[in-house]
């Protein structure tokens, strides 16, 4: 087994994000997922002779939004290049992509360090460029016959390929980065990031740096493909760390000794396996696509986008922590649920809800109910304003927590009732102070053992008294019961 002090795992990622445009990158065909094969195609995306691409400007807008959110430099002039290779699911024999003038230049993203709740990590980006997707090849080898079918519905769908620097150092960090990236892209609404439908695809480039007596040795870089979930990314990278260590100890091969290898993750076996390359050589003979004109990007447009994407998950977490005093962990939970929950939180606080109480109620009651009912926040009966009213009452001591929960539940059934109506329906009444003291005195008389313990300094038994008090009158405030009982014990009833 390797000594983790001696090696460093070096990871760079290539993330393909399908942009949420209604139509394809260079024609008007719909991009919707799941249609019968070859029904969302036209002469242009089928690569028929004489057809020409026309740029979908919405894809450019979404790419700019993403680039700005990823702190990338946005090119003022970007252009289109042909990447030439033969493959049956590539109808034109080339892919329209961007070679030397990508729409997004260098950038970076800060994301929470899962190992350290207070800390963050940072990944730099090399670039992000727009390109069209290829179609899908399906190989049916059932029944002993090799039958290949091609679905070109996906051909021409806009992708943004985001390339990171090799800044990640652990499988966990890679997963945390991807989680943050997906959250950010979902916040922006630039992609639905559905990995099952191929809207988010990840390839990893990974090798080891072995520190051997002051020397730093790099093992050959391996590209890992077929990573169909973040869990798969994490597992595959952990597997590669072991495999490359073993391989290095066996062969001593270092970076440059062998050509770059591509391996595919096998989810069932939990291993990576060497993949057959599409082409023997990878000379893509990139050249500018003469069918498209270079694109000028207005810096003012970029500036407008910059203002629009100012509130990213990172900023929102900080806002929740610093403006509302929410703990980092809690802020993370709320932000990770998406933009609408953050808005729910902020609306509740703006309506007078005490921030910490709102945060804890959101994480427990609100999220649980949403999960159970499958509702969205928009259709949720307990609006942010109602939650604020409820928690204000709790904060003011007018309503005890468990009774507030009853109101919450009641509102789910009776969304038109206000707080007073709910209290009336639930029989929640203010408890008379004198009655409460009498109730406590009765209880103390009935439980001499608890009194004895309390007098000896052991207050554990008071909980049972509170329970008993609530049984006799559900409206009593447990804190008050405790305080009165303590007082009575001290004064000898």
């Amino acid at each position, binding site marked *: 087994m390797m000594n983790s002090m001696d090696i460093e795992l070096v990871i760079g990622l290539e993330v393909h994000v399908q942009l949420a445009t209604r139509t394809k990158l260079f024609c008007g065909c719909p991009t919707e997922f799941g249609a019968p094969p070859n029904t969302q195609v036209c*002469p242009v995306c*089928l*690569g*028929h*002779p*004489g*057809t*020409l*691409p*026309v*740029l979908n400007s919405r894809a450019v807008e979404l790419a700019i939004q993403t680039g700005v959110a990823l702190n990338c430099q946005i090119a003022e002039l970007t252009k289109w290049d*042909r990447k*030439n290779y*033969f493959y*049956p699911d590539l*109808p*034109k*024999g*080339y892919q329209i992509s961007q070679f030397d003038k990508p729409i997004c230049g260098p950038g970076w993203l800060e994301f929470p360090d899962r190992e350290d709740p207070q800390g963050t990590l940072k990944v730099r980006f090399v670039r992000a460029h727009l390109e069209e997707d290829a179609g899908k090849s399906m190989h049916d080898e059932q029944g002993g016959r090799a039958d290949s079918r*091609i679905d070109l519905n996906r051909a021409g769908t806009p992708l943004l390929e985001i390339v990171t620097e090799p800044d990640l150092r652990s499988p966990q960090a890679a997963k945390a980065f991807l989680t943050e990236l997906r959250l950010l892209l979902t916040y922006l609404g630039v992609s639905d990031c559905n990995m099952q439908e191929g809207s988010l695809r990840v390839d990893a480039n990974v090798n080891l740096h072995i520190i051997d007596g002051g020397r730093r040795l790099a093992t050959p870089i391996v590209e890992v493909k077929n990573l169909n979930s973040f869990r798969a990314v994490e597992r595959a990278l952990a597997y590669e760390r072991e495999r490359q260590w073993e391989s290095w100890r066996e062969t001593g091969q270092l970076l440059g000794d062998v050509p770059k290898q591509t391996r595919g993750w096998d989810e069932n076996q939990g291993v990576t396996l060497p993949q057959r390359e599409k082409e023997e050589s990878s*000379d893509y*003979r990139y*050249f500018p*696509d*003469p*069918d*498209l*004109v270079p694109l000028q990007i207005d810096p003012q447009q970029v500036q407008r986008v910059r203002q629009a994407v100012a509130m990213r998950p990172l900023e929102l977490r900080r806002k929740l922590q610093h403006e509302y005093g929410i703990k980092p962990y809690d802020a993370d939970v709320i932000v990770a649920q998406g933009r609408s929950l953050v808005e729910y939180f902020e609306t509740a606080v703006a309506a007078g809800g005490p921030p910490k109480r709102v945060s804890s109620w959101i994480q427990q009651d609100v999220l649980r109910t949403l999960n159970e009912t499958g509702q969205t926040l928009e259709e949720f009966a307990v609006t942010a304003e109602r939650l604020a009213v409820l928690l204000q009452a709790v904060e003011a001591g007018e309503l005890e927590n468990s009774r507030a929960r009853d109101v919450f539940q009641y509102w789910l059934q009776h969304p038109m009732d206000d707080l007073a109506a709910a209290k009336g329906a639930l029989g929640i009444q203010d408890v008379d102070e004198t009655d409460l003291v009498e109730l406590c005195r009765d209880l103390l008389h009935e439980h001499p053992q608890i009194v004895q313990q309390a007098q000896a300094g052991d207050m554990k038994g008071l909980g049972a008294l509170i329970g008993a008090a609530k049984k006799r009158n559900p409206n009593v405030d447990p804190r008050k019961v405790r305080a009165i009982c303590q007082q009575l014990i001290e004064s000898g009833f």
Partner: protein
Amino acid sequence: MQLESLSAIELGRRIAAGELTSVAVTEYFLERSKALNPKINALVSFEDRALELASQADARLAELGPRSALDGVPIAIKDILCMAGTRTTCGSRMLSDYIAPYTATAVERLLAAGLIPLGKTNMDEFAMGGSTETSIYGPTRNPWDPARTAGGSSGGSAACLAAGMAPLAIGTDTGGSVRQPSAYCGVVGLKPTYGRISRFGLIAFASSFDQIGPMAHHVEDVAALLQILAGPDPRDSTCLPDPADDYRGGLTGALQGLRVGLVREQVDHPDVAPEVRQAVLRAAAELQRQGAVVTDAHLSLSKYAVPTYYVVATSEASGNLSRYDGVHYGFRDLPTDSEQSPLVALMCRTRSRGFGAEVKRRIMLGTFALSAGYYDAYYKKALKVRRLIRDQYLQALEQVDVLLGPVAPTPAFPLQQNQDDPVRMYLQDQFTVGANLAGIPSMAVPAGSTADGLPLAVQIQGPPLSESRLLNVAYQLEQARFFVPRIAQA
């Protein structure tokens, strides 16, 4: 009546006036074409719907009046433009059974203007060639001398006109493919500014050069055709946003004071046949007589035009022709006895057998020029030279209004003469590729005949979007009977 001796505009006028019907005119040209085609081989297919469209045009004309000056007039279209439901072969085995599923913008505009497609014209395979000899349908013969080429790649279109098989034709010009056959066949051919006519539906050879061009006997017919074809198209990003000029309306100006630059590097080039040179000088003299100021002009980079063109154009072609892989449409050949994987075997065999020698030569040239390690020395350098050539053209065209020179070094050459010598064939393009490299409009204008009766021509070139100016110069030459439209007695 010999309808082939009438201009297309005149045919359109008579159809609109009810003196002729579109059906009668279309029938006439169909019959004439069918009679002459076995000898000339200018048309590779006849349009089945021609008479149906003509009768629709007649009914519509009677009710609603003409849609354009050419409503009801038949036209021959190069077999490189897609028309839904029609076979579009590009002269290649690769597309010999290809039925286009959509219609080119240019064809749409012709149909919308009421023109009647007569058939598809023969061409060099994928427009790669200068003699129509690379077509799978065999060479088109020059109506003026069937032993000679009609030129290429739009040889079928030019020959159709020369033989009186159609009053109008559409060609395409990537390196001279409208102008050179027009010159060889004695007709008027215009290559507009790059982007003047939409390329949507034009099967690509070299995308940054390809341009559709109108061809006819009469300058006014060319102008009327351009009027229909030109203008912006949202389906072609490289199509210019400028609206079309009133090209026919522009055929009025006198040439008084017009600055004409005689391109010395071309006129004095040793490859230029004496009769071609004399034709250019005669045209200069005629323009001078009409009040133009003729001076010498210089395009010192002319000699780099052919190598630059053949690097950039073949590079683009190598990508454009990658789609013909036997997978999705077109010719397919899957060998069963191959040692390669079925996929590699399918693509290799399809492309080896689907393309002819010249196409394969150009694909290989372009692939080489774009390959790692050669890109900078060939493709990238050629792009730089292209920019220099364009700048030189534009500078020269600041000094003068139009440039005058030869179209091709010689009149139509005998068939097979250049077939085994690609470089000699490529040199036929040396005076025409410049306009494609620079993206400027250029025109072939008839200029009499050689002693042997072969057509002669001159080339007039102008700055971007100067089509009206070029057409007017040509029109004044026609009006002065510097050339007289003639039909070959094939």
